[in-house]
């Protein structure tokens, strides 16, 4: 079963615009991570946010976490065509085995040049 659900399932924007993707999850977590996947192959780790953090930045990425709502958002600013990919959130469950990541179904982002 999948813990996280990304929203929207697909997003199409123009280069230079910002892209926001959301993730909701069901059970309490230790950490939440965002990954990018190109062409259905290997995943690239983007950012990890801990359950006691509310916001984190990395370059053009901004991640927020609201544990009361069990949700996270990933913002990509000033998007580029190279950002076109699928984006997944992954959680590890509090009290569980914190090595086991549970992924959502992903958001397919298309950035048009």
């Amino acid at each position: 079963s999948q813990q996280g659900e990304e929203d929207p399932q697909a997003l199409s924007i123009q280069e230079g615009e910002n892209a926001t993707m959301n993730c909701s999850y069901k059970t309490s977590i230790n950490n939440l991570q965002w990954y990018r996947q190109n062409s259905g192959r290997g995943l690239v780790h983007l950012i990890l946010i801990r359950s006691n953090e509310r916001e984190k930045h990395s370059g053009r990425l901004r991640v927020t976490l609201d544990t009361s709502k069990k949700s996270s958002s990933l913002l990509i600013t000033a998007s580029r065509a190279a950002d076109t990919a699928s984006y997944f959130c992954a959680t590890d469950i509090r009290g569980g085995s914190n090595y086991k990541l549970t992924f959502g179904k992903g958001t397919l982002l298309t950035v048009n040049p």
Partner: protein
Amino acid sequence: GAGVSQTPSNKVTEKGKYVELRCDPISGHTALYWYRQSLGQGPEFLIYFQGTGAADDSGLPNDRFFAVRPEGSVSTLKIQRTERGDSAVYLCASSLNIASGRETQYFGPGTRLLVL
């Protein structure tokens, strides 16, 4: 340094055959994970190794699936009597250790398995 590598990148087999998928983790990473990703879905956990031992194999779908990591480095995922439903991308990941619970998992490019 080199990332996680997986071979083969693609594997086509016939229903009922046996397949082996190989994963070479990042050097020095003690933790190794296998995930399976079906079309349109996120990766799903299969098995986790800490060193040579399978610490958690709760994600393996049935006893046709087995994985080994005899020397604590390279791992092989073995699938017996393959079925069409086994068709998916099989992803391997490794991390330095799990002591902190926050170690990033680094993924390989995956093996795309197609069972005809």
